[in-house]
């Protein structure tokens, strides 16, 4: 593809670019500063996780799926565990459900604060980045104390959770939530009043309600266009059925709306955490789970900070699952990027991409490779690939069962 094509200049944003946190390729055709067309290519983060799941036991898979992404790790692990528990017919004790909710909401806080900082950085407002990430440290330290690690918490196990909360820790969580609530109120004020921020975020990345429905947007991206879908409300899981909160939506249809939605969600999260800690039921924290999960299949959904996360698990009675499929929310939101960037300026591209809160590590499950010489997209078929990979590992001393 030539660089200059009629009056357009084609500039590569990615796969390596300071605007992107993960490799993705946006090939932008520019005329002056205006974007004429854009081609989105994903697939640079494919790691073969779904295939890896088939070779490991369920409990090993939980740790593997947790490491799909650092920011929404609890989302993936809980979603998977919910599917497995549904197939196995386990009844998880209520205390475990409440603890899962608590960790999930703490993760939502840290994810939204991270997003606020990244959005500030993409528009050149580094001060917001520094302050929100400073506040995020409070949550990370809290999670380190509760679960044992700052990211990739590993609090889930099949049938419940692995660690309990003491009253001391509850008190500390409540104090930290008070501090964070003060800070979040201040950030809401900044978002409403700071002129340069409003100028950069308003009117940019517009996605009308119909477009959002048609392109399948989920999460805050859709909720800022007036589509009020929230899995916590529509299909309650864990302890959400017993808690009282609102799903925040807005009708600005642009990045400013998404900021408001995320900040509103933060305020709701603080209220949820307080309710969880007040009503924490007593009881065991896990039930015994069998090593062999009976045959069956299940789909489970979870409201990750980025949107609706979907896991499909199929088991066949052995210790390893037969098929695990992960549909991350960013895959649903990526379709909307080209639409949002129609007729916009180059300077809007980083913030528009950042506004869907992309986590391309979550997204990349499959890549299509086309052999440029032959034009075919079939290099090895499935059995050849399987034999090739098993032999590769055998030559290095690792045997598969």
């Amino acid at each position, binding site marked *: 593809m030539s660089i200059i094509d009629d009056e357009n200049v084609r500039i590569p944003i990615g796969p390596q670019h300071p605007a992107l946190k993960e490799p993705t390729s946006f090939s932008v055709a520019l005329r002056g500063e205006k974007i004429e067309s854009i081609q989105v290519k994903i697939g640079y983060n494919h790691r073969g996780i779904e295939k890896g799941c088939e070779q*490991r*036991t369920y*409990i*090993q898979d939980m*740790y*593997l799926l947790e*490491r799909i992404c650092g920011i929404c790790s609890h989302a993936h692990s809980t979603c998977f565990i919910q599917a497995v528990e549904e197939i196995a017919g386990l009844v998880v004790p209520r205390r475990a459900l409440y603890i899962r909710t608590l960790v999930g909401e703490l993760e939502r806080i840290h994810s939204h604060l991270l997003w606020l900082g990244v959005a500030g950085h993409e528009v050149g407002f580094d*001060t*917001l980045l520094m*302050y929100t990430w*400073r506040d995020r*440290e409070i949550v990370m*330290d809290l999670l*380190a*104390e509760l679960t*044992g*690690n700052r990211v*990739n918490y*590993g609090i889930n*196990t099949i049938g419940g959770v*692995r*660690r309990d909360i003491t009253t001391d820790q509850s008190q500390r969580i409540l104090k930290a939530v008070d501090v964070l609530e003060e800070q979040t109120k*201040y950030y809401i*004020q*900044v978002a*409403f*009043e*700071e*002129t*340069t921020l*409003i100028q950069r975020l308003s009117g940019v990345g517009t996605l009308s309600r119909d477009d959002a429905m048609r392109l399948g947007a989920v999460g805050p991206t859709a909720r800022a266009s007036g589509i009020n879908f929230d899995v916590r409300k529509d299909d309650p899981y864990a302890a959400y059925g017993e808690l009282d909160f609102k799903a925040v939506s807005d009708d600005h249809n642009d990045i400013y709306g998404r900021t408001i939605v995320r900040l509103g969600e933060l305020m709701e999260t603080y209220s949820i955490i307080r309710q969880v800690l007040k009503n924490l039921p007593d009881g065991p924290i896990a039930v015994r789970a069998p090593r062999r999960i009976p045959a069956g299949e299940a789909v489970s959904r979870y409201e990750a900070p980025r949107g609706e996360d979907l896991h499909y698990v199929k088991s066949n009675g052995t210790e390893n699952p037969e098929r695990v499929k992960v549909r991350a929310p960013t895959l649903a939101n990526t379709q909307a990027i080209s639409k949002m960037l129609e007729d916009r300026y180059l300077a809007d591209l980083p913030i528009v991409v950042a506004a869907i809160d992309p986590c391309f590590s979550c997204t990349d499950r499959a890549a299509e490779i086309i052999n440029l010489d032959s034009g075919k997209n079939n290099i090895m078929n499935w059995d050849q690939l399987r034999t090739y990979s098993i032999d590769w590992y055998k030559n290095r001393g*690792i045997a598969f069962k």
Partner: protein
Amino acid sequence: MAKPIRPGKMIEFVLRSLFKKPATIKYPFEKIKMPANFRGKIKFIPEKCIGCSICVKDCPSNAIKINKIGDKKFEMEIDLGKCIYCGQCADSCPKKAIDITPEFELATADKGTIKVIFRAEGPDAGTEKQA
């Protein structure tokens, strides 16, 4: 939005930070202590081990090997580079022979220290380098 839009909203907040201590911990000159139940390096208690190898089976990254070196004496060989510090081995062990310590400063420039063997006998269940 009833409040007026004005530029430079963060000025007061930012100026107040001039008088506070910076929020930076000057690592490694100032050390941070991790909470007591932080998942760092594991510790093996060979007297309690019965050699069932459930930890080997459950480890998500195949980092543990249990070697029998005598009657009811087992030593554990762990590859600290492969370990993901998840603590599943400690949870799975039926005799609680594995403890999780909060030690996390394990970075090293010497590859020989990555694989560690916990001795099975002797006055200490200490660590030993493996070639």
